[in-house]
């Protein structure tokens, strides 16, 4: 593992452990299941870190924990050196605007009762003037390559690809520093995936973003990632530069994943 000392660490996850309490139907005899066990990693500013694992490996729990939605049983999450789980409400709201999620299911991520315009307005800094808001909405829409007609649509009137672009535009509109892309393009078809990957790379440069890219699909990871971490059964078993992982994986599980993705 190479740590480049010249670069600033934006997000650091230290010894993160999350347990789910599992009950049987009668509500007695609790047992706990480790969703995450002692996971540590960091992300440099401007970098794309990909976390790869199978469904149920706990990779989404990492995202939820960073997003402050699932509380860790132990461990810390540091953003620019500050412990996220010690934020007060105002600090938390400011932090939330800096890290924006884009989830796999765009359908689920958009309020079915709001028009696209209102969603984007909600994401903007409230203090802006109306003209400025409109200007920025147009800017973000063109950045994700959407027409302005979508502004007056409800989510169910949009196609899957359009919905995912709206989600990305919304994530940009908070002037975020980091996007958490949790299987963000996995449910789209292949040609659209290629398109969205290209778009994501462009956006990253244009808005100087940092990406945490969570996926089960090594092919897209190969395109977008700078560094790659492998998650298995709630543990981070291997992490390193993309070329290291893809060319000379140490863990047998990683080798297995790579072999399977060659098909």
């Amino acid at each position: 593992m190479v740590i480049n000392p010249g670069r600033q660490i934006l997000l650091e996850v230290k010894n993160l452990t999350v347990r789910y309490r599992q009950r049987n139907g009668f509500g007695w005899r609790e047992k706990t299941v480790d969703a995450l066990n002692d996971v540590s990693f960091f992300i440099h500013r401007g970098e794309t870190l990909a976390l790869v694992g199978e469904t149920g490996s706990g990779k989404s729990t990492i995202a939820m924990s960073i997003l402050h939605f699932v509380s860790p049983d132990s461990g810390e999450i540091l953003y620019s050196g500050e412990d996220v789980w010690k934020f007060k409400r105002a600090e938390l709201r400011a932090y939330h605007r800096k890290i924006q999620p884009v989830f796999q299911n765009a359908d689920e991520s958009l309020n079915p009762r709001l028009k696209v315009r209102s969603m984007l307005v909600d994401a903007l800094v409230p203090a802006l003037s109306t003209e400025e808001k409109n200007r920025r909405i147009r800017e973000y829409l063109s950045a994700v390559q959407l027409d302005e007609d979508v502004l007056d649509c409800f989510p169910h009137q949009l196609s899957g690809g359009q919905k995912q672009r709206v989600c990305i535009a919304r994530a940009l509109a908070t002037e975020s520093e980091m996007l958490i892309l949790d299987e963000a393009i996995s449910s789209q078809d292949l040609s659209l995936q290629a398109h969205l990957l290209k778009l994501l790379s462009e956006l990253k440069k244009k808005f100087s973003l940092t990406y945490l890219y969570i996926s089960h699909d090594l092919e897209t990871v190969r395109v977008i990632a700078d560094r790659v971490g492998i998650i298995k059964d709630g543990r981070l078993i291997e992490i390193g530069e993309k070329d290291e992982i893809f060319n000379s994986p140490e863990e047998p599980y990683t080798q297995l994943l790579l072999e399977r993705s060659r098909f």
Partner: protein
Amino acid sequence: MSAFLFRRLIGIVPVVLIGATLIFIIVHLAPGDPTTIFLDPNAGANTREQIAERFGLDRPLATQYLKWLSGVIVHFDFGNSFSTGRPATEMIVEALGPTLILTGFSLIFGILIGTLLGIFAAIREGRAFDKTISAVMLFFYSMPSFLIGVLLLGLFAVRLDWLPSSQMTSLFHEQLSFNGRIVDSIRHLILPVTTLGVSFSAVFFKYIRGSMVESLHSNYILAARARGVSSGKIFFKYSLRNSLLPLISTIGLSLPMLFSGALIVEVVFSLPGMGRVMFYAALARDYPVIIAAGSLAFLSVVLGNLLADILYMVADPRIRLKGRSS
């Protein structure tokens, strides 16, 4: 399980105490003065004070409350009725008999008829039989139970004079032979039990039919059909079993219905049950009886809810997670 049950049972105690206290407060703060009921209009202020003193109403509310509370906790004594002078609990226990007989039989009637018709309607979903029964049951479901009683009473007791219209027994009940007494009691019970029973059956019908139809359309039933499982087995083994357990918890939840649903029916048929005791105690501002009856009704509701919760958990043994992964 036992630890969980114990926790829930302990949890009942504060709820019931709070409930009984609230009933005490509501009853005492509600406008209207019980002494006026027992007062000769010509009597002076002196007599009023004497009556108030006898009922303990002259002391501050807090003192009355503490005295009442200690009586309840230590002796299970809710005080003596203002109007009869007998212990309130004794009057309640006496009235409980007719109410339990009425509601018990009605509940059995309702569950049997409602469940059976519900099952058959669900099996024949969309056919003429289902449509007819569903329409009839919707009619009864939308009907206040006392209205069913009034109509039955008007038809069978007043018009046709086939059955007695009021009371649990005839005036000459004691002079009848043993068999005669049983026949007499049954004749008196037919109308009120049918009234409440029809009302209950409409509720259970709606429930059972709904949940059977829903489960018959679910994926696992479709899968079972695709595997070639016989229709009979699908209905009774898969669908019915899944609908019956929640039904039991619905019965638990309907326990309060036994009290309030029976109340007006008891008034209609002049049955000496809880409903009538409550009704006349309220009219006579008979504090101890109202509070005792209210607390009992409250307890039954809380117990019914607990029963429903427990049965619901037994019926729905899905594993609950704190959150979802991936």
